[in-house]
């Protein structure tokens, strides 16, 4: 289980004798909320484990008669090529946007140039715009560069539109590094890259973890660019999942198994590295 936000140890002063009725009420409400949040998970898993013949709208909440893995198998076989597409898209675009973001953050926090105060908010605006407002020119550009339909064009889009958030996170992260350390490096004769390589980069590991997790989750989950800019062979997994349920006879158990498989990578990241995921989440509200 992850600890996402650091719990503040309760000070002795606050450990007052509290009203048992109030405590019970708190736990009852929390428990009800917990059940509400997990209902969809229960339905996904039980549906996915049922055989197609077992699925009956009136009995959807019943447990499956046995653990039937056929739907997972079918969903996995169908989704596998698209899962590979997603990996081939997500890994390079995450890494490249993280590295560029780190360099940008370094420049913006330690080598402030005239006009940086104007350029930085202009960059940040890019992470809030509705992507519909750039989609048609983006589509045309990729078409004219012969990048439309494949993964390369989509990768390019994710790198560029990932820059605002990666730059923001690294800029805020490097702002915490005292300027004296940079000055000390300069006195020792280190140049721009020397300072980055020997002073900042070694301190950057947590920053990189936050950015990589954030970008990985965002790009893996993205849909609008994916559905507009790629052709069938290059679809990321989200597009294929959305098609999984479009046939005449919808096989719900395969659809639910597919949803589970699509969610699994980001879910695992969340479960094991939740603390860093939250930091990315909170950084998105600009003040960080």
């Amino acid at each position: 289980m992850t600890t996402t936000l650091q719990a503040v140890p309760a000070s002795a002063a606050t450990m007052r004798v509290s009203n048992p009725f109030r405590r019970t009420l708190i736990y009852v409400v929390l428990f009800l909320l917990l059940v509400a949040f997990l209902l969809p998970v229960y339905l996904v898993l039980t549906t996915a484990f049922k055989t197609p013949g077992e699925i009956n709208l009136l009995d959807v909440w019943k447990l499956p008669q046995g653990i039937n893995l056929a739907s997972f198998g079918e969903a996995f076989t169908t989704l596998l090529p698209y899962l590979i597409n997603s990996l081939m898209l997500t890994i390079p675009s995450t890494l490249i946007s993280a590295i560029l973001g780190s360099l940008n953050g370094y420049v913006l926090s330690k080598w402030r140039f005239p006009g940086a105060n104007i350029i930085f908010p202009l960059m940040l605006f890019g992470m809030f715009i509705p992507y519909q407002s750039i989609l048609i020119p983006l589509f045309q550009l990729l078409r004219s560069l012969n990048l439309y339909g494949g993964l390369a064009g989509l990768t390019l889009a994710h790198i560029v539109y990932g820059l605002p958030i990666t730059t923001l996170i690294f800029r805020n992260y490097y702002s915490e590094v005292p300027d004296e350390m940079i000055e000390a490096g300069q006195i020792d004769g280190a140049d721009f890259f020397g300072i980055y390589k020997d002073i900042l980069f070694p301190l950057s590991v947590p920053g990189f973890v936050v950015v990589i997790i954030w970008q990985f989750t965002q790009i893996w989950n993205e849909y609008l660019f994916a559905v507009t800019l790629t052709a069938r062979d290059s679809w990321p997994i989200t597009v294929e999942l959305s098609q999984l349920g479009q046939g005449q006879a919808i096989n719900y158990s395969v659809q639910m198994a597919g949803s589970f498989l699509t969610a699994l990578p980001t879910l695992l990241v969340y479960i094991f590295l939740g603390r860093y995921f939250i930091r990315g989440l909170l950084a998105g509200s600009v003040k960080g």
Partner: protein
Amino acid sequence: MPRMNRDRRTALLMITPSIFLLAVFIYGFIAQTVYTSLTDWGDPKKASLAANVKVDFVGLKNYTDLFTSLLNGRFRTDLVNTVFFTVLFLAACLGLGLLMAILLDQKVRGESIFRTIFLFPMALSFVVTGTVWRWLFQPNGGLNVLPTTIGLPALDFQWFTSKNRLATGTWRDVIMIVALVIGLVMLYLGTDNWLRKKHRTAVYWVIGLGLIGGLFFASALTVPASVAKESQGLNVAVIAIVIAATWQMSGYTMAIYLAGLRGIPEELREAARVDGCTEFQVYRFVVFPMLQPITLSAAIILGHISLKIFDLVYVMAGANNTRVDVPGITMYITAFQANNFALGSAIAVIMLILVAVIIVPYLITSLRGEVSS
């Protein structure tokens, strides 16, 4: 120092590619979209995908079409859906998120388990959420039959396939009501500030809101008769989307409220208790006022997400369910399925303006605050 200058140049050189890419991919592209929205690119004779189309400048025609032509009623319904969706989604996310944060702030056992589970939907794709909730919202199964598991009768909601519409009115009514609400807010803020001796603020509010309200009132009179009679209202189907979106996003509000609550020094609350405040009063007079800036930024972040929402609705309800339709979907269908780039661009520009209206002031104040602190 010459060395310093060389490093400075290197620094500038390193950030230039990013600045160039963003300048082109954000501002260049936006400019191109704005230009396209002023042309006729996509008329049947000027197919969007044909090579060497010669497009003509048509001014604001696409925009006036969107707001006045009978063919584009779908877009106007989208706007109404977006307003209701945004209001309900914000209220649900902020309310539920605050409730969860306050409960978890009571030093409960297993706090990290609760927190992890309330927040996990944030890690999912809207496509996954849409697929899963479409199954939960099956009118003859899913949530509707959940009560039967404990012997209660099944529910009868139609969820996102519902055709019901509440609070219906024509466009003229809508505009009049908006003008009336603005007027009432103006009166309240004006008198409230005046009585609190903030005379200048009071005058600003009255003049500002008076102008906006007057503009609305005047525009109600200019709406063409054909559109003015068009009936709009809260499509009940939107509520299903709100439920799914709240399931996914309320963990986010919980997380930022919790971070805010943890940032309030315990001494402050203790001092209030020593002064004789009940636990409720501690929240009312100490905690809530301190959470106000957080509420504002959460509302802005969630609000801009709801204005540009696309994938959740598209996957859950399909491309042509007008009862839950939003501008993001209509833009996609118009531009990439009907191949009308000009009209699609006009929708995109309207979406951009709506988002910019809330995001630009937010960015400016947040970065200014950062500099002064």
